[in-house]
């Protein structure tokens, strides 16, 4: 419904733009450094350290998606938790699950759009300097970071909506454990076998917010 998206956009507008800009700046810095280093150590040696020593050129991006997911979730759901304002949303003449899912879908779609945009910049820029044999493993390596960003969004929303502090803490611990799956230390391309499983789990966990929403509605004290 247009109204829902209207309200959600008002909430996340500035956060979204901030991260978009941050991401563009991050990518720019990354490529400027690549350009500089290729010039100074010679392209052949630069490719060598990527191919045979596993030095990535994109480490600067690692936690960007996570912070973006966190930021957008907070921008979207924190205003709802103040004074239990989400009661207003639940009171609207729409099914409670439906409206929560739509709010969630909006946030997730915005985040995904941002990430896709970053992917496009990443591939376009890398294409100038590197062949497919370097770009493909790089994409494999950064994909879990972006999935982790989405998972962070879903889990943060779930934590913010949870009414009881004890459970908020427990969900934070469990959620942090889950998010750590996306940021394990590994060489370039190491995540290849597990990306699909992680994507499926991320998709599944998007429904978690319904659970907290329900707990909120039933008046958990």
């Amino acid at each position, binding site marked *: 419904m247009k109204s829902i998206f209207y309200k959600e956009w008002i909430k996340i507008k500035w956060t979204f733009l901030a991260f978009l800009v941050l991401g563009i700046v991050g990518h720019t810095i990354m490529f400027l450094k690549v350009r500089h280093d290729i010039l100074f150590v010679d392209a052949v040696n630069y490719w060598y350290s990527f191919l045979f020593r596993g030095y990535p050129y994109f480490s600067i991006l690692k936690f960007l998606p996570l912070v973006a997911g966190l930021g957008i979730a907070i921008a979207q759901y924190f205003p709802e938790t103040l004074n239990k304002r989400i009661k207003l949303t639940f009171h609207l003449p729409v099914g409670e699950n439906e409206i929560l899912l739509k709010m969630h879908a909006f946030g997730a779609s915005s985040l995904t759009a941002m990430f896709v945009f970053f992917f496009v910049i990443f591939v376009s820029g890398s294409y100038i300097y590197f062949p497919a044999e370097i770009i493909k493993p790089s994409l494999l390596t950064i994909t879990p970071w972006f999935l982790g960003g989405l998972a962070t969004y879903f889990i943060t929303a779930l934590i913010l909506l949870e009414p009881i502090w004890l459970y908020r803490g427990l969900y934070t611990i469990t959620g942090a454990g*889950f998010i750590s*799956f996306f940021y394990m230390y590994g060489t370039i391309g190491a995540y290849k076998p597990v990306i699909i499983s992680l994507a499926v789990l991320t998709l599944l966990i998007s429904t978690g917010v319904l659970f907290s929403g329900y707990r909120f509605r039933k008046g958990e004290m």
Partner: protein
Amino acid sequence: MIKLSRYILVLVGIIVAAFAIPKLYWTIFEKVPVNPTVFYSCMIDDFIILGSEKTGPGERMDGQGNRMTLAEYEKAMPLMFFRQLMTDGNMPDSINGVPMEPMVINRANSFYRYTPRKINTPVPSLYPMLESQSGKVNLAMPDDYFRIGKRMEFIVAKTNKVDEAKSLKFTEALENKGFAFPARLIAGIPTTRKSKDEGYFVTDSNEQLYHIKMIKGEPYVAHIETPEDLGIVFIECVDLRNSEYYCYLFTRNKGIYVVMDEVYDLQRLPVEGIDPFSQEIRINGDLFNKCITVEGSNWLKATAIDDMYEIVDTHEETWKGRYERSDGKILSALVPFEVSLVSPESVFIRFYFQKSPGYLWIFSSVAALLISLFIMMRRKMELKSNLIDLAIVAITGLYGLIIIFIFPNKFR
């Protein structure tokens, strides 16, 4: 729908618990594993085992189980410790009629170690083709990298563009030798820190083995005859000082072969049951013998061979595996399974699922089930609506017990 969302959270929670709890446990309680190393001594005509379970870490024994002191060990391995012995004046002048010259000894010594992490790993697929005979003393990195897909292509790093002429030249050379594109395995030593460059050993899509080098800028391609159904799964090239052979081949018929220098004869090493996906392999060579050690998680088999690749002697060791030691036993009694994202045998990150060996975990799962029932009854929860939760605890034991209460089931 909401119930489903809770079960999804429970599932994810259990995965996290099954990952975090064992990790915490091992971090606190893991004992240093037994990790023996085996050498063969031409002096005592027997094996020397370091760090066996019998002797403990840092101690040595011979193949019969007799302990050896450091001095005895050094004396028994003169080819390894020749520098020390020569300094001490304890080096024999000759062994087996061969005079002990440091250069000769050094040339013949080799240490090779293979771990499954070498095969369970992402493959680069771009390689530098060095000039094999530049006439210079030092090797130099080329300006380009090659890949072998539908054809062999050289990409100039600086411009990120294909060098068409060179690519064509090499592709034709491969086609003339009957190479079936694309390549399956490409193995070489992609560094300038080696004594000589021998290019790459490559299998094509029909699993035929080729040797590709660049000599004075021109392609050198040799097709190496291999037996039918050899099934090469892994190749590792080595830079031996005595240039005895180019590389090791690991094959589907559970063997290890070496490809002899210049003549390209395949020599099978006299060891059986080789599984490069799970075993560690060490090959230590000296002037007279090679010692091939094949290692699993709680066993090893060492085979000593002579310079004709005939077996001279064998030795076996076993030790308590992870789950036979007390630390592993306790954990396998507490939890029904473990989840990990990393494995010592692989570079890849994926979900590794390890069921607890033995049956002791059944007791703790039952205990977990009883505890859940107790908690549910104390909280006056309706058992009928919690049947699925109880089933979850029955299957996942401790993890389920914790998680079903972290995500409480309060549906009415």
